[in-house]
Structures are given as C-alpha cells and as structure tokens.
C-alpha cells in the first residue's frame, strides 16, 4: 500500500522535501517496486524487436533513475572530479540509496586502464527475474547497468557500462564493467 504521509496533495512539487537520507515513510516497499519494475520490463519487451534493443531500452530507463539518484544524493558543496572518488560514491552512497546495501566490491581491471568492475551478488531490481530460454542472452541487469551509466555521466564521467552474469548455477552474481571514455582518462592523467 502506497502511503503518502510525507507528501501533501496541495503542496507544489518544488516545495516537497528531497529525502536525501532514508526517513521513515520515504522508503518504498519491495513489492511495490518489483511490481513497477515488472511492468517496465514487459513494456520494453513488447516495444523492442530484438534482444539488444530490449537491453538498450531497459538500460535507458535505468539511465534516468541513475541520473536522478545521483543528483539527489550528491554532496552539493563538494563535487566529484576523480574517477575513483565518483566510483566509490556510486558503489556506496548511490547503492545504499537505491538498494539499502553497498556494492560487493569495486575493482580496477588489469586488462585496461579505463576499465573498472563493480560486483553485486544479487542486484536488487532483478531478484525475482528468471529469464526464459527464448530470450537467449538477455540480461535484465542491463537496467542496473543503465543506473550506473546515468549516475556517472551526470557526474561528468562519460562511460559505457555493461552487465555480465558470472556463471554460478543458481546465483545471480553480476559484474558491471565500466569503461570510461578517452576524455575522462585524459582528465585523470592530468591529475597524476
């Protein structure tokens, strides 16, 4: 049941408080979220004609979520300008705000200077997702990949993010590969 105790119907949207920290009544029930997410996935499935298109559409929805979550939680006084700083903010603050836990780990790739990996053993939006065989390689965690991309790009760090399931039978261990664009890496080098 959706409760609107902290929002009054008569107040203007710009006057309502931005709940930066979880306040009793500002949290969303898992069932409400899962129902909404289920509808989102079905909407994209019916409007997409291929698996890559489906993943891209779902990722785009995630982009909007990530962008706004970043803006809600970002420190207004001190801005993130370093890659490691923004990634740590993402894997702790943004993850806490959305999923009530921190990401399992953040790693720098050994293969490439511009690649980083975020691990999550069971990303929250997709905990009830079971992809039918007919959809082949479709990964619903592309929604979360979109969230990551939206948050990072809004912070000023252009990147490409992909979600990969780590094969482990029943679990849904996922690795998000973040590849920052050349411009971002050049800026990073200027700091060194």
């Amino acid at each position: 049941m959706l409760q609107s105790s902290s929002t009054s119907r008569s107040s203007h949207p710009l006057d309502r408080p931005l709940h930066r920290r979880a306040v009793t009544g500002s949290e969303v029930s898992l069932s409400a979220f899962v129902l909404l997410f289920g509808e989102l996935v079905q909407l994209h499935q019916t409007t997409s004609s291929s698996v890559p298109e489906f993943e891209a559409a779902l990722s785009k929805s995630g982009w909007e979520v990530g962008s706004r979550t970043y803006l809600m939680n970002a420190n207004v006084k001190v801005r993130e300008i370093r890659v490691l700083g923004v990634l740590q903010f993402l894997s702790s603050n943004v993850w806490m705000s959305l999923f009530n836990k921190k990401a399992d780990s953040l790693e720098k790739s050994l293969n490439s200077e511009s690649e980083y990996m975020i691990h999550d053993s069971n990303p929250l939006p997709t905990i009830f997702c079971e992809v039918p065989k007919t959809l082949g390689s479709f990964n619903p965690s592309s929604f979360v990949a979109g969230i990551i991309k939206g948050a990072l790009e809004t912070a000023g760090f252009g990147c490409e993010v992909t979600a990969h399931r780590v094969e482990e039978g029943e679990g849904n261990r996922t690795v998000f590969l973040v590849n920052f664009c050349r411009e971002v890496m050049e800026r990073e080098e200027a700091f060194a």
Partner: protein
Amino acid sequence: MSSPPPPLLFLITSPTDPIYTAEFLKPGTTTSSSSKQYAHYLLHSQLDIVEKLKHSTSSSQLKTLSSHPPSHISGFLPPSPHAFLLLHGNMNGDNITKFFNDVCEVFLKAMMNPFQGMEDGINSKGFDDRVRAIARRYLS
C-alpha cells in the same frame, strides 16, 4: 553622476545551451536593451572558464569569476553538468553563496521531474517564482 548599477542577471546553462535566464529588477526600474545585451555577453564570456573549472576544482562555489567594473560575475556548479552564473554589481559574497545554495535546492527538485531533461529549458512557472523569491530574499 554615476552610471546605473548593472542589471542582476542569472543564468543556468547546460553544456550546450542556456536553460534558464532571469533578470531580477527592482520594482520600478527598467534596463535598456543594450545594457541587457551587454550583460548577456559578459555572462556568456565566462562559460569557457567555467568549463575548465568544472573538471579542475571540487568546490561548487566558484566565487567571483571576473570583474568588469561595475559588473562582477559569480559562478556555482551544481552536482549536475550545469552551471549557474550571476551578473551583479559588487554584492556581498555571503549573500551570493546563500542565493546559489537555495536556488540549487530548487533546481535539483526541478531536475527530479521526469518531464525535465538535462538539456531542456526550465519552463516551469513554479521554478521561476521560487528563484525570484530567493533573489528577493538575498540579492536586494
């Protein structure tokens, strides 16, 4: 006879376009169109500096970016890829800081609107009203 004080001009810009402008006029005064154009020109001339500062400084208050007496330009960087610029006539720095902070609060809420894109102009009258109220509170 001193020249009239420069207009108070506030600009919010995305990396590509301005998305919101407001001129805060004292009731009863008007500004000539040429001084308006000059004011816009001065503000936009600071955009390159702001772009550079975006990636080099982690503080959001940019303080005074430049002065062409009697006009001064102050800047602020919200967490999003936008920039706030204010053209003013040597105002108290604290007031400007508070102005930027309060406008940022309203700005972030405006960005939460699903119909508001990062690059779209902010056309909401509610936003305009609130920015003007904040300007009246700190900048008059």
